[in-house]
């Protein structure tokens, strides 16, 4: 399973991680087992929303980011790549180390 599909599955299932958007458009991801908290800025929260809605390609994430925020394609691509790397480190790699 690709990285982005695995992240999408983890975020959508609400079993291992729960996610909440806060009133200032930031967000929180909570690891139910360890109670580790990952905070999201508004851009990160937007990308998590996209993943939870089933977006499964980086290209789609980049397109949605450009449509939502005033940002160029190169910057959006770099941001999406960096965000997915951080999310993977938190949700997948972090868990593997503690299991």
């Amino acid at each position, binding site marked *: 399973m690709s990285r982005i599909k695995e992240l999408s599955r983890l975020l959508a299932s609400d079993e291992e991680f729960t996610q*909440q958007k806060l009133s200032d458009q930031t967000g929180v991801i909570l690891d139910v087992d360890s109670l580790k908290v990952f*905070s999201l800025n508004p851009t990160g929260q937007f990308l998590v929303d996209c993943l939870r809605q089933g977006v499964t390609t980086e290209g789609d994430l980049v397109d949605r980011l450009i449509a939502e925020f005033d940002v160029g394609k190169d910057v959006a691509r770099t941001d999406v790549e960096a965000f997915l790397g951080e999310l993977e480190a938190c949700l997948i790699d972090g868990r593997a180390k503690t299991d």
Partner: protein
Amino acid sequence: MKYEQDQPRFRQPGDILLFLRALPLARKAQRVRFAPLPEVVAAMGVGGGRERDPRRAEVAAGRACLRYGRWCGGLDTCLTRSLVAGAMLSGHHDVVLHVGFRPGSDEVPLDGHAWLTVNGEKMDTISPDDASRPYDGILAVPFDADGRSGG
């Protein structure tokens, strides 16, 4: 959040008894540092609770967690207090443990909190509701009436 303030003095012998019942639960609640929250709730609830009055249970839980923190270096947080009070009440009420967050301040960007609902009503004198800045619940773990967590 760590609570340093003293609890009110014991007012009647029953308060001491409640405190003594809550103290081992405060020790059990320390498992939250190592075990998944639903498992801790399940372990807390074994045997069911004995206290029927939510307010008395909350006060006893606060006292027990405060003392356990001071005497044994354990956690005294809204989460441990909620675990103890929830275990005390679980035999008599529908009790659910909630964890939530709200945007923080400049110093603390994220503000987390734990509280109980008892028969659907929020029980939270530790951090009374600020209507302008409510916590958004992210996790709800029920205590089963028979003392087991519903996960």
